[in-house]
Structure formats: structure tokens, C-alpha cells
């Protein structure tokens, strides 16, 4: 009885049996790994593509073209900026100091001292602004140049100096001022920002 049973699986059938069992397993092992990777990558690609399309559709819903009135307003603002803000060149301090001194002296302010501070020395000051045409052409950087003025004058002299500052235009803006009475005169310290422009890279 035992010999009959073992004859089923003796050496003559072992190779075939191994082939029967091994062939599908080998096929599965060989084919399953790349297939799984492919399916995973394909799923990720599908997700990315769908998300991209969703994002485009969302942006299309939220973005509308600029109207002609908006375009005109932007063009006018840009022109005003170009007209009101002058270029100061590579050394703004050298150009600005005498200009301001003559401005305030012309207004009648006496005992004037002008100090030019580099922009990075004024932490709380405004940041440079980058503007351009709507199509990106003619880019320019608007640079805030901090200037400190110390002057001593009577109150009328101070008023004239402030009037001169206001009359100069939008490019010069008062940031901070401190006026201290010293007898009949007033000691004033003015911190202003003088905007200049230069072409951006």
C-alpha cells in the first residue's frame, strides 16, 4: 500500500510537479511587482492631473480680465509715480543733502543740519516698491530714502519749513517730527522719507 502511494510522487513526476507549482508563482512574482508600481504611479498621475485641472477651473472662476477703466486708472497711477518720483542716481545722499538744505534754507529755516540715513538703517521705514506696466515692461523700483533734518528756528520758521515740505510734492513725506520749545525758539528734528526711483533689472 505504501509503495503505491509513494509512486505518485516519485522522481519521475517531481519535475513536472515543480513546474506546475512554480510557473504560476514565478509569473506572479515577476509580474506583480512592476504591475503594482505601474498602477501606483498611474494613480498618482491621475490624481495630479485632476488636481491641476480643478485648480485651473477654480482660477478661471475667480479671475476676471481687467476692465478698460481699471487699465486707465493703473496707467494714470503709473504716470503719476513717474512724474512725482525722480531718479537720484547711484549715490542718493550726495544728491539729496544739498537739495534739501537749499529747500529749507530757502524757506527761511535757520541752523539746518541734514543727515542722510541708508534705508536699511531705518528698520520701521517703508519697504522698496516694485512696479511695472501691466504687461511687465518698464519695471522700476521705488526706493524710500530716509533723511533726518535738525533745525532750530522760531515757530514761524518751522511753519515755513513744513509748508515747503508739503509743497514739494508726494515724493517727500514726513514720517516723524519732534518740536521742543527752547525759549523763544523751537528745536525741531524731522524724519522724512524721500522717494526716488530706478529702473529694475
Amino acid at each position, binding site marked *: *500500500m*505504501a*509503495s*503505491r502511494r509513494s*509512486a*505518485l510522487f*516519485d522522481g*519521475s*513526476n517531481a519535475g*513536472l*510537479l515543480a*513546474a*506546475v507549482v512554480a*510557473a*504560476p508563482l514565478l*509569473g*506572479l512574482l515577476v509580474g506583480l511587482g512592476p*504591475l503594482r508600481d*505601474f*498602477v501606483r504611479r*498611474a494613480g498618482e*498621475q*491621475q490624481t495630479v*492631473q485632476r488636481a*491641476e*485641472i480643478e485648480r*485651473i477651473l477654480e*482660477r*478661471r472662476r475667480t*479671475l476676471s480680465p*481687467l476692465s478698460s477703466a481699471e487699465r486707465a*486708472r*493703473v496707467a494714470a*497711477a503709473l504716470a*503719476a*509715480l513717474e512724474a*512725482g518720483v525722480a531718479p537720484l542716481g547711484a549715490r542718493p545722499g550726495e544728491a539729496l543733502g544739498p537739495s534739501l538744505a537749499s529747500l529749507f534754507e530757502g524757506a527761511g529755516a535757520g541752523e539746518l543740519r541734514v543727515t542722510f540715513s541708508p534705508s536699511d538703517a531705518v528698520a520701521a521705514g*517703508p519697504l522698496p*516698491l*516694485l*512696479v*511695472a506696466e501691466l504687461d*511687465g515692461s518698464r519695471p522700476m523700483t*521705488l526706493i524710500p530714502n530716509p533723511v533726518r533734518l535738525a533745525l532750530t528756528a522760531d515757530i514761524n520758521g*518751522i*511753519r*515755513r519749513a*513744513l509748508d515747503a*515740505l*508739503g509743497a514739494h510734492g*508726494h515724493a517727500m*513725506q*514726513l*514720517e*516723524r*517730527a*519732534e*518740536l*521742543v*520749545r527752547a525759549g523763544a525758539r523751537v528745536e525741531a528734528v524731522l524724519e522724512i522719507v524721500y522717494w526716488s526711483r530706478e529702473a529694475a533689472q
Partner: protein
Amino acid sequence: MNPRRAVDAVLGRFPRRTLLHRVGADLVWAQGPSWFARGAALDANPGSAAPAVRGDREAVVHVPEIRIARVDLPGVRLRDARRIAERRCADLRGDPPAVHVSSLVRRTRAGSVLWLVSAPNDVCLELDAELRQRGIEADRVLPLSLALGALARLLPAAEGGGLTALLWLEQEWSHCVIADSEGWLFDRQIPLKLGFDAAIGATPANAVAWEEEEHQFIEHVVVELGRTFNYVERNLSLGRVANVCLCGPLAGLEPVEHALVANQMLPILRLGARPLPSLGWAPHPASGAALGGIALGGSVAEATLVPDAALVPRLKARARRSLLRAAVAACALLALGLAAAAAYVSGISTSIERLRAQASRWEGERAALAQLAGERERARRVLDAHAAISQPQPPWSALLTALGGSMPERLFVAKLAIAREPEGWRMEIWLDSEGLDEAATADAVARLGNRLSALPLFSVIPSERQAAHEPAADSRQRIVTWVAPAERSGADGE
């Protein structure tokens, strides 16, 4: 359900085609799957051109030298019963082996039952050679007695748990098998033989002689059956016979049946009554039932009379065929799996390509959107820069003039600080007095605050709010105010 219909229902459960062969004086049934056996013919003549039966072949034979023994093993598990069977087989074979011994073990409700089948080696070799000569290379050869015993398991149970007698009637010999619900118990070859070469019920030339022959035959059957039953019940004490089943390839068994009913008063079952020549290749009900016994009788290696020398190569070939089929099926399955995987991958690729095409259609849209977003961003920067730079300054000269004009008598400005805040320009005014006591100074400061509040250029912050948010650095009186008309509404919200 009457017994006949019950037997027919049993026969209908066997899906295999049955082929009937005559080997000398014996009948041999060979069965194979209907798929392979389709078209094979009944082979009654040695050397005929009938195609050999393919597939798994099992045959039932009757050889007088076969011995069967049954051992009931109550409470013994199947595994232990197999060990017992191996031991018994080894004992019976002897050394050197002169007898072919095979066993069949079946689990029962009470435990296990073991049948031992033995026959001389030379008989088994002759039998196998004769079968092969007729194109039957049998995987298993089962004794007819054991097959009929297994057939008894399919029949309706006898009332009261009695035994079943299966009477197999042939022209040359007859056989009676006594079985219980588990199978073979006892068998006896009965010397019943028709005296002429015709089936019972046929019309002979000499009607008187025929009638006498038939009468003697039936009487003989009844007597021999009665003797057998008496032997089983009284001498062997196996139990009471409660059922009789008539079977065999002979036609015209009705007179026998009637006589048995009249004498034994036992329920009679009939399996098949068609004459042998009319079988064609269609399954004979009785042989089908006998082969059902084979199907219930264990594996091809059990209770078989095929010699070991012939059986092992056949089993190997059979295993090889099974393995080959499994290999083909596995390869087909693998191919199907690969095809399905390829179709799946192809579907995914198509889906990705479709998405890519869709995304490429959006490329132009994306560029237009990017341009539009860039325009909006640049417009916002220009407008923000213009708003930041062109913010109007307060009229400083007018403010100082208004402040000077609003000063109460003996009160003067000691210090004035202006700072640009995100909300607007903030002015702090420190005041001193000359010749005023503290209360009068406070009163004068309050008056100045009221006067400034009345002017549109100033938005004085109440002193209690100012004190809560920003305490004064020194003890001097102080007024804090916003000084940008454009920022007045924003300052109010502080």
C-alpha cells in the same frame, strides 16, 4: 417514493458513463468520465474494434478465487484503522507474497469498518492480462461482491434495520450478497443456471419443456435463497434479511420476482431488466448502480485486484496526466491573469492619456490665466504704491496756527511730537503753564482739548483712554490727537 423510484433516483446521481464488457463468463463494467467515454461502444466480443475506454477506468469482475473478509472496528478512528489494515494485509500476503491483498477502510458512525480482499497473484495477473486484451487498462478492479455490498448502501434502508440481500442473476451463475447499511457482510455463489440459451420469458420451440425449465429455475431460486437466508440468520447470526434486491443483466425476471414475493413475503427491489444486446453503449441501470458501488468504495488503490507491478505504472501515468492537466490549467490561468492585467494596465494608460490630452487642452488656458494673474498683481502693486506715496500730508502750517490760536492763557506747548502711524498722523502735545496751580492747569488743558476737538483738523483721544493705553512719560499735561482729516474716521475706530 416507492422503492423502484428511489433506486432510479439513486442511479440518476451517477454522472459517469458506464461501459459493459464481457470477459469470458464474467461481466466487466468499466467506467470513465462521460467526456472521454462518449462514443465508446459495448464490447461483448474479444478482439472487436471497439475503441478503448479512456480516462479513469474501474472494472467490476467476478472471480471465484476472490476472498473477502470484513472486520468491524467500533470506536477505532480511521487513521488507526488504516494502520490495522496495513498490518492485516502484510500478514495475509505471507513471505514471499503469494497472495494479492488489498484493503478498504470506511468510517462509520460506530467507528471504522475494514474489508480485506485477497486473491492469488497468478489469478490477478491473468485477470489484468485478459482485461488489457480487451482494451481495458483498469486503474482499479473491484470484486462484484464488494461492489454489490456498496450498492446496498444506496438502496432504501430496510425497515427495522434488517439486512439487504442482493441477488445477481446470470445465465451461467448467480450470486447472493448479504449487506448491512455499511456494505458487504457475506456472499454466496448459488448454483443457479438456466438450462438453455435464452432469457426467461422468451418463447421456446418446445413450450412444455420451457415451462418446466422455468418452473424448476424459479423454484430453485426460491429454495436456494431461503437456505442462504437461514444460514445467515441462524448459523452466522448476522441478523434478519428484510430486503431483497433483484439485479443482473437477464431479462424477464418478473416471474422470479413474483415467486419471491409469494414465498418470502419480503419487499422486492428490481435493478434493471433490459436484455444484454439492447444495452448498446447506454448505461445499464444495474451496472450503473454497481459502479456507484465502486464510486463509493474508496480510491483506486483500495480494494483493488490489479497486481502491484501493473498498478504502480498506471498510477504514475494517471498522476502524470493529472499533473499535465493541472499544468495546462495553470498556464491557461496565468495567461488569463496576464491578459486581464494587460487589459487593466491598458485601461489605466488610456485613462492617463485622456487626462493628459485634457490637461494639454488646458495649457493655453493656463497661460492666459497666468497672464491675467500677472496683470492683476502688477495693477495692484502700482495702485498700492501710488496710494502709499501720494497719501496727502496734513496741513502742518494750518495745524500749528490753529493750535496756537486755541491755547488758553498762561498755557504753552513745551514739546510736540508727530509720528506717522498706519492709521494716520498722531500728534502728542506736552503742555506747561505759567502762574497756574495744578487744578487750573488741568482745567486749561481740558479747555484746550475741547477747543481742539471742536476743530475739524483734530481728533482728540480722551485722556482716560489714552492713559489706559499709553501712560505719560512724565508728569506734564499731555494731549494726544490724530491730525489727518482723511484719517479721522479710522481714528474714531481706535
